């Protein structure tokens, strides 16, 4: 290889160290790098660098050699180790191979992709279902495609990053309203110009604080303003409503909602995303939705596990009931211990514990992990209003005894860190 053929990244080329023009593009991250180094130098473990060495069940894993109760996985219905689900994945792996190596619109739609869309149509009672490679992409796809330059997307200020990113990918005019405020939504709908289409984007459960949206009222004002409505049920599927479809079903507005967006990576227990709808022209999205077209489809084993799981979720009434028992018990227990919780009662399977600052949050997180329970640590900008929180998500497979153990560990960690007196 000649000198001239060396790439600028060649570590042997000493003259390549440091670009001669412009500043280092990474310099914008310096404040974050410094903050992180300062935090880790205090000797705490990295909350964003945890490794599950072994996973024993939906609720137990080995972390740093220690058996740990999982309380931050979104594995609400505990389907990840369901024997039928696992077997379906193995069978599909044998029958169809490890991956499709192609887009849904070319060589990437197998029998299994068709079947999981049938399972979704059956679960939601809709005419159409479209499966994406992740939930993130389902939101990217809908937001960026359905609303054009002249149209308006009206969204809750606390919307998930995938909704915001989908808006950024598209050309629509974006209007925000204050979180969960029906009045604020109504005011903004009233101020919209008469021209242009309207899409109101809501979430059944907001995943940071675990609070639910007043969907009945919000859908009503949206429809009165002539808007289409999309509801993201990522954190509601499986245990809200008579059929487990989500908060929109429980709110009694299923016939008013134009699109339901969901994911396979929570209650369903694998990975993937979807949109279901009754709109007669829905299928055209398969041709125009870039996050659907320009990526490889889900592996056959994944769609097989998803289809099996969705069919079982339809009849998972007992699991649903136990999940709610767990959530209510954890909420009450933590409140009785003196923790500050994000919602006045258990509104979903997410219980968020509010803490005063990053240092206390990381110390609590670490004390809990050392005691034997894993929760999510969340910080700005993922959280609303600059909050630091420990987010607990329950599983239908958590036993009564495990919930008791978790409460004991919270009490011990609270005292060890000085948060509880």
């Amino acid at each position, binding site marked *: 290889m000649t000198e001239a053929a060396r790439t600028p990244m060649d570590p042997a080329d000493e003259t390549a160290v440091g670009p001669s023009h412009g500043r280092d593009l990474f310099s914008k991250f310096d404040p974050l790098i410094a903050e992180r180094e300062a935090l880790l130098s205090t000797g705490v473990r990295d909350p964003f660098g945890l490794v599950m060495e072994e996973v024993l069940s939906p609720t137990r894993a080995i972390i740093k050699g220690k058996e740990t109760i999982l309380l931050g996985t979104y594995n609400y219905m505990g389907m990840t180790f369901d024997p039928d689900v696992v077997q379906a994945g193995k069978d599909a792996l044998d029958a169809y191979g490890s991956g499709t190596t192609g887009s849904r619109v070319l060589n990437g739609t197998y029998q299994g992709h068709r079947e999981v869309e049938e399972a979704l149509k059956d679960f939601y009672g809709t005419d159409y279902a479209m499966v994406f490679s992740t939930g993130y992409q389902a939101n990217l796809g809908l937001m960026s495609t359905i609303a054009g330059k002249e149209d*308006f997307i009206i969204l809750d200020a606390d919307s998930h990053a995938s909704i915001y990113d989908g*808006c950024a990918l598209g050309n629509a005019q974006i*209007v925000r309203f204050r979180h969960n405020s029906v009045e604020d939504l109504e005011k*903004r709908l009233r*101020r*919209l110009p008469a021209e242009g289409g309207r899409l109101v984007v809501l979430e059944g459960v907001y995943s940071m604080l675990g609070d639910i949206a007043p969907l009945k009222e919000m859908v009503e004002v949206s429809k009165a303003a002539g808007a289409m409505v999309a509801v993201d049920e990522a954190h509601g599927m499986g245990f809200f409503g008579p059929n487990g479809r989500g908060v929109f079903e429980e709110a009694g507005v299923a016939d008013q909602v134009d699109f339901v967006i969901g994911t396979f990576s929570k209650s369903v227990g694998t990975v993937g995303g979807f949109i279901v709808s009754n709109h007669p022209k829905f299928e055209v999205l398969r041709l125009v939705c870039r996050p659907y077209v320009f990526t490889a489809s889900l592996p056959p084993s994944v769609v097989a596990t998803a289809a099996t799981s969705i069919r079982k979720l339809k009849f998972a009434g007992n699991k649903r009931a136990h999940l709610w028992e767990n959530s209510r018990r954890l909420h009450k227990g933590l409140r009785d211990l003196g923790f500050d919780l994000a919602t006045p009662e258990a509104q979903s399977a997410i219980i968020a514990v509010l803490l005063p600052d990053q240092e206390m949050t990381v110390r609590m997180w670490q004390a809990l992990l050392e005691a034997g329970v894993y929760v999510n640590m969340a910080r700005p900008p993922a959280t609303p209003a600059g909050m630091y929180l420990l987010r607990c998500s329950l599983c239908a497979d958590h036993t009564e005894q495990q919930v008791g153990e978790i409460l004991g560990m919270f009490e011990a960690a609270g005292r060890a860190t000085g948060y509880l007196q």
Partner: protein
Amino acid sequence: MTDREETLARVAQLIEPFNKKGVELNEGTTFAGDLEWDSLIVMDFVATVEDEFDILITMNMQAEIETVGQLVDAVENLRNEG
């Protein structure tokens, strides 16, 4: 007072509760640089301005507004359209 001056005065009043550092305001004052507002404060403030003038300032428009003067211009334009 012209309409624009009146709008500027009202906008300045709305900024005050969010002006924690007591930065002196003029048309060239920037929200991110001088006032050091993060995205959460911006969201709150924009909603307040929208409600005060009964207008919508889309996120697309917000991306173009960096100074107090630019915000006043945007408010004036939106009010005249409406």
